[in-house]
């Protein structure tokens, strides 16, 4: 059984349910990506699974423990989360920020032990950020900054790492750089990676397992071969996609796509409303 799974999970704010009755498990030592359209509950699911936000009902289990009941510091030793586009960390230096990754292991004034220093050093090296250790984080470029935040998550020394859209605001080259770093961590150190991605082709290229979400429910979960299909993408994104094969990676890719007209529920409902009402909406 997987270390981390959800069972009939409901997450929402007030009456509004965003994640509905979701039961899934995160494969150990694999890369999992969550895809879906805006507002489908991707980020909410990610936050609920990492106990950043509470859930209404159902359970999230990590190593047999209920995630809301276990000590949050202990969870932080097993599972790191990189929130969506973290604020620029004000003026902390790279070294300072990454050293706060050791927070879950510290008490009191938080003097860093020899082990802490070693882990921090390693995290800086492996992300290629050691060179600007003494520079303020907000003086770095977007790609560098993202790698620094990943370094902080790595300094947490967790086997599971969650990332919420780690490639947002990065250019193509830097996106790839971040994803390759995560892939390397997964392959060389067997870390379980779970991330929300917007780019389907990146998801297909890097993920071992894809969760496709729509309206807070799983439409399809499986390998990229199983999820990157015309039918699934039609259902999840309301697009008519042309699926091909990446000549270099041999993974499925979405070559081109069109919006579906009149076929999805949303559009239909608009056409079925009288004109006068439509004008108001």
């Amino acid at each position: 059984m997987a270390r981390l799974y959800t069972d009939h999970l409901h997450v929402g704010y007030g009456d509004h349910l965003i994640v509905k009755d979701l039961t899934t498990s995160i494969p150990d030592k694999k890369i999992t990506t969550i895809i879906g359209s805006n507002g489908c509950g991707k980020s909410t699911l990610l936050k609920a699974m990492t106990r950043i936000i509470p859930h209404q009902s159902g359970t999230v289990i990590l190593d047999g423990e209920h995630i809301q009941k276990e000590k949050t510091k202990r969870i932080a030793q097993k599972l790191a989360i990189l929130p969506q586009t973290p604020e620029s960390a004000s003026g902390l230096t790279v070294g300072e920020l990454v050293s706060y990754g050791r927070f879950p292991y510290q008490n009191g004034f938080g003097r860093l032990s020899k082990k802490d220093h070693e882990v921090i050093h390693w995290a800086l090296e492996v992300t290629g950020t050691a060179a600007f250790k003494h520079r303020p984080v907000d003086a770095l470029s977007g790609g560098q900054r993202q790698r620094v935040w990943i370094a902080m998550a790595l300094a947490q020394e967790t086997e599971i790492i969650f990332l919420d859209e780690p490639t947002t605001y990065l250019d193509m080259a830097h996106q790839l750089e971040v994803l390759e770093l995560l892939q390397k961590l997964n392959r060389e150190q067997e870390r379980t990676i779970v991330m929300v991605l917007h780019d389907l082709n990146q998801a297909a290229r890097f993920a071992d397992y894809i969760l496709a979400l729509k309206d807070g429910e799983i439409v399809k979960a499986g390998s990229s071969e199983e999820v990157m299909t015309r039918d699934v993408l039609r259902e999840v994104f309301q697009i008519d996609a042309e699926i091909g094969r990446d000549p270099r990676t041999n993974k499925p890719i979405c070559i081109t796509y069109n919006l579906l007209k009149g076929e999805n529920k949303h559009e239909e409902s608009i056409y079925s409303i009288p004109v006068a009402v439509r004008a108001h909406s």
Partner: protein
Amino acid sequence: MMKEKQLSLPFIYQLAIGLILFIIAFLAAMVFGAADATVKDAWLALTSNTANDTVTLLREIRLPRELAAIFVGAALGVAGAMMQGMTRNPLADPGLLGLTAGANAALAIAIVFLPSANYLAIMLACMAGAAGGAALVLGLGSMKKGSLSPFRIVLAGAVVSAFLQAVSEGIGLYFHISKDVSMWTAGGLIGTSWEQLQIIAPFIAGGLFAALLLSRQLTILSLSEEAAAGLGQKTMQVKVMLFCLIVLLAGASVALVGNMTFIGLMVPHIVRAVTGSDYRFIIPMSALVGASFMLFADMLGRTINAPYETPVAAIVAIMGLPFFLLIVRKGGRTFS
């Protein structure tokens, strides 16, 4: 790639320099004033039981006053730093966000309804008032959906402060205690007694120590709440503790000196320029710089127009207002 050298001075040296400046400010404040004294007199007042006129004056009048300046400056500097970190708002300050006005209103109410109240009761009333003022501002600021933008909070702070100010003045006029209230609120450091200090100073000292213990938590909270929660912080618990500490420090300060806006705003910004953004460094340094700043401002107040006193609150405000405008102009980016 070549590794860069650390550019700034190690914190321990920064702290040492801060300490030296603080000692100089303290000695200067002891020596200069309406009645001039020598460094030797100051030394005797601090260390011996000598009882000639100057030394007695220093010990009984100037020393408690300077100690009050130290405690208030440190308390407000640290309270401001905590507020800025917690709200991620570069304009946060106990005076600007309604805490001081709330404490003042509570003070006026206490004077009317508890005429025999001792210093302890007055201080507790001030803390309760500070908490009430802050709650009003945060409540008003978050009435509209969305996150609390720095400027909206400051606007709410101005509105609530004006309202609470009116409340205190109204109470003062109606119950004919305006003079008593303004004795407290505008009096600054004049007439601080040993008795008053003995009651209030331990609270401030305790608050400062607790702030130091929470400084690591404050740093990760200042990154973002999600990041803090992800690192295993009990975010809600830490925020409540910080809020209590801020209220304690701001309330105790008002009980000692009354209104004192801008110290909490300025000091952390000045400190950040030297120490960077880690609150483990900002908190102790804000205490030192805040204390030195208050000593300096009080000394100016006593000497500019001697033998008349210039209100220290006015001096601080004259220095603070341009600073406030500078931060607004930079759009809060000095927050780095």
